[in-house]
């Protein structure tokens, strides 16, 4: 199956054949194998695991975005921002998390609160991914 995995900052796969992709989505994490039923989903912060044809596993952290599985078995994973797991810094993530939490607690209105909640969620997932 042809995987296109791109983010605003980088392209990871461009129509490259892979064995399997595991993605975290708002309707639950799921794995995509060739001939998966066509579907649309929205990415939630977490780790996307790509199993390449030679058996190599590639773990990439994504913040948000979309997943499209088409009827020709091509898969598009488009993320707002994505980074390989080894590039994540646990200490920095921890710092970002506490900053986001304090922002969440001091948020004045609904909008700021929602924004801070998203930041907390992303930071939590980064910490989780970096310490795994």
């Amino acid at each position, binding site marked *: 199956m042809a995987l*296109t995995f*791109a*983010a*605003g*900052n*980088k*392209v990871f796969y*461009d*129509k490259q054949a892979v064995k399997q992709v595991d993605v975290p989505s*708002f*309707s639950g994490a799921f794995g995509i194998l060739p001939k998966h*039923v*066509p*579907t*649309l*989903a*929205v990415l939630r912060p977490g780790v996307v695991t790509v199993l390449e044809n030679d058996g190599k596993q590639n773990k990439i952290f994504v913040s*948000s*975005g*979309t997943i*499209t599985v*088409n*009827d*020709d078995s*091509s898969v*598009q994973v*488009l993320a*707002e*921002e994505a980074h390989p797991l080894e590039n994540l810094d646990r200490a920095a993530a921890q710092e970002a998390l506490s900053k986001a939490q304090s922002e969440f607690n001091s948020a004045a209105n609904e909008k700021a609160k929602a924004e801070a909640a998203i930041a907390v969620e992303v930071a939590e997932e980064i910490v989780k991914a970096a310490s795994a």
Partner: protein
Amino acid sequence: MLGRVAPGVCAQVTMVVNHQQNRNMATLKSISLRLKSVKNIQKITQSMKMVSAAKYTRAERDLKAARPYGEGSVIFYDRAEVTPPEDDPKQLYIAMTSDRGLCGAVHTSVSKVIRNKLQEPGADNIKVICVGDKSRSFLQRLYGKHIISVCNEIGRLPPTFKDAATIANAILTSGYEFGSGKIVYNKFRSVVSYEQSDLPLFSLKSIESAPKLATYDSLDSDVMQSYMEFSLSSMIFYALKEGACSEQSARMTSMDNASKNAGEMIDKLTLTFNRTRQAVITRELIEIISGAAALE
């Protein structure tokens, strides 16, 4: 601004030259002034070319990364065979330009595509969002009532996803319920060429009525809504990147041309300047000699 000044300079220079040929007057000072100003203009255009060359390399590198991203975001609309609804004539056009000129026809060509659309019958249902000041200044006077919003501060820095998200948010919160639409932008082909292209925009309703949507599994309206919003911003992001790259490459070419033209002008002016200088010396000599001859 320079673009507007340059033709004026040109006209005046030919005037000076003609003046010279008609009466051999000593306009040495005016020629040297003119020469100086053209030299300064050339310096400016040359450095602008250098700057845009540097910006262009970066924009092209960014664009390479954004291409699969942009292509990926439209594949779904292709595969699901989404078509604009026939019963909803409301259309939205997004003009992808920037704030800065002096880059050939990149902005005018995008604006022209939209102007031609607005001249067709049934244009009352078309609304336009201008990204960048240039498309606004082009469309505002005649088609001001079609413009629903304008985005500034585009083109100074390389576009980011956040810019795209802000624009997408402005579109979604504008309150205009469009049935379909297009993002009109310049697609970068090579350093010397770009072409106008467009990306489709669809409303949630038209996606839901797409014939092949039924083959897609486990869709609910929440997912569709978020999916659409995100894909709108990724398409805008892609169009911004393409536009920025085309703009920089076009600016590079046009500034190169401007420097060349200025160079030609400088050559001509130097020649006239030297000729006039000679003429002035000769005339002064004649005056002295004839003065001396008259005394004898």
